[in-house]
């Protein structure tokens, strides 16, 4: 099986989905001849032509709003927002339209679009290029929101997102585009949405993360294993629907939970994970929940961005605190 990068896995999934369903098309800024600024759509124009691989004018609201119109008429648009920080105008279409068309028409019209966007920090980019936006999306009923942290998951989850009959936002951790490499079988097999991945089993503490922060979470889990602690590492992968069963099941066994994400602390999706535990697994909790997150400030420019992102030391310290407490 070929070892590919995460961005290549995205590319393979897009090509596969377009191959198997003539209603699938790709649109966004620079997705055509340029193959996307990260090359996620490379080669698609040559293979599928301008009709199915469309450069759009520079307007994120347009990209999402036109996709809603296409999806409502039975196409399956996979649209790209060049960086997550530019998604806000498009939120209007996601929250007010894409997520509601089915309800609004009692199922007569549906909106099977996928919105892909690179998300998260750590690539020394300018302002607005490093945002983590999953908490906004998680709070919009009618959307699904998925973020892979390995090439294999990128491939399988993106295929499922495209095949899903409802709107899915697919957040691709920019930092892992080339950093994360792994085997991907281009066999068209999807991975189920709404399912977390238990990457590593452990009896002492549950570590839940997603997206780019999985990278440091893995390193921190390694570190703690080296110190003799059993860390159960879970890649949530699906923000919504959230795989509560897997996470709560683990916390019920370990009694300790550390949640790690890059997005700011207050109102981050880590709060939802912690809240579910406080509601539904409180009796099994042996230590206060720990959240290791971006700060409640603006992601700084490159000089300080590493200081902003949850690092291995911070995560390891939180794991140790959770383990020490009773």
């Amino acid at each position: 099986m070929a070892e590919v990068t995460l961005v290549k896995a995205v590319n393979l999934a897009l090509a596969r989905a377009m191959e198997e369903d003539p209603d699938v098309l790709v649109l966004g800024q620079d997705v055509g001849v340029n193959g996307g600024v990260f090359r996620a759509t490379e080669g698609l124009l040559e293979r599928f032509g301008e009709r199915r691989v469309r450069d759009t004018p520079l307007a994120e609201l347009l990209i999402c709003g036109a996709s809603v119109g296409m999806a409502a008429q039975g196409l399956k648009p996979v649209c790209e927002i060049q960086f997550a920080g530019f998604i806000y105008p498009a939120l209007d279409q996601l929250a007010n339209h894409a997520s509601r068309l089915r309800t609004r028409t009692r199922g007569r019209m549906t909106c099977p679009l996928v919105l892909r966007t690179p998300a998260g920090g750590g690539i020394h980019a300018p302002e607005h290029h490093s945002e983590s936006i999953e908490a906004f999306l998680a709070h919009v009923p009618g959307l699904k929101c998925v973020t892979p942290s390995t090439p294999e998951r990128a491939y399988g989850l993106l295929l499922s997102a495209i095949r899903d009959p409802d709107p899915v936002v697919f957040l691709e951790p920019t930092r892992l585009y080339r950093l994360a490499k792994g085997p991907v079988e281009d066999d068209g097999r999807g991975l189920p949405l709404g399912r977390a991945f238990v990457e590593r089993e452990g009896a002492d503490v549950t570590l839940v993360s997603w997206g780019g922060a999985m990278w440091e979470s893995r390193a921190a889990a390694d570190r703690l294993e080296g110190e003799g602690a059993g860390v159960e590492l879970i890649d949530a992968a699906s923000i919504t629907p959230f795989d509560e069963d897997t996470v709560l099941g683990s916390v019920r066994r370990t009694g300790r939970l550390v949640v790690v994400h890059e997005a700011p602390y207050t109102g981050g999706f880590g709060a939802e994970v912690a809240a579910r535990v406080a509601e539904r697994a409180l009796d099994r909790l042996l230590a206060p929940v720990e959240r290791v997150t971006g700060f409640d400030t603006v992601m700084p420019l490159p000089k300080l961005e590493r200081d902003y992102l949850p690092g291995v030391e911070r995560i390891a310290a939180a794991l140790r605190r959770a383990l020490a407490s009773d």
Partner: protein
Amino acid sequence: MPNVPTDPAPDLPVVARFEIRRRRYLDENGALMRPLPDSLAAPESITPLYRAMVLARTLDAKCVALNRQSRLGTYATAYGQEAVPIGVASAMRAGDVLVPSYRENAALIWRGVGIDEVLSYYAGSERGSDWAGPAHDFPTSITVGGHALHAAGAAYALQYRGEARAVACVFGDAATSKGDVYEAFNLAGVWRLPVVFVITNNRWAISTPLAKQTASETLAQKGLAAGIAVEQADGNDVVAVHEAVRIGLDRGRSGGGATLVEALTYRLADHNTADDARRYRDPAEVRAHEHAEPVGRVRRWLESVQAWSDARQAELEAACSAEVEAGVEKLFGAEPEPPSVIFDHLYAEPSAELARQRDAGLRAIAAEREAKRRG
């Protein structure tokens, strides 16, 4: 005539020139200003449009009355603007796609949506939008302008499939202030989409007069920014609206790209039943526009060609009333929707969490209703 400030350099060479033209057939008195288009030249071809406008007016009056009786929620009439929805709908083919705002109830009805289905929304339930009528038509857009991009996307779907179909999207003058509407124009231009955008320029947006929306002299010229075909039509002349839209749809179907039609009309009524226009609008202005309203002029023309009579009018009014009453009866006669619809139409498959919320929620809702019943 151009509203651009005095040209700072009349000696600079001109690199582009534009004109806005206005289309009119029937003047305010029902007299012909130019020959009728072939398809509408015979009186029998205009009477269905006339009938539909009278039905629209009958329905609107009924809805205002129902609202006053607290039997219907907030409702926006198309009073005085009926030529726009009927001009648009009558110019469309069945396979075309309508993307309406909240003043196009009459257009939906023309296209086959039931009166009860249309009114369901104002009676407080979305279920009517699951209409038996044209499956590809969009439901009413409440967000001003939010649907313009849907129209562009829908038009691309038709173009993608190589179908000879087109999209008609209607919105108000104030919608043209929104960036998404401009973006839709621009996309329609650059992708040569089969779509006609129709601006119902009724000169008001709730209390905001057009002069506070924009300094552009016409709204048609907003299409110049997108390089699309533009035209102004007398929006109180159902023939002009019909013909402008028909030409635009034909242009779209034949690969000629997008069209913007500004339909000049006037909002004779309050913004909606929750509004009182006397707070902000001089009644004299309204009176000055009354004679130009679209229904009377068609009747006057039909009468002038001996195609109409008081008897036919009485017959028509009775028929429209009966149709409206039947629709209203059907609406109020329907079983109320169960609260489970709150949960059942969000996704094709509910998540585990949503299923949990549904179970617990339906029990809680039942308890809440029971408590309310007991007082």
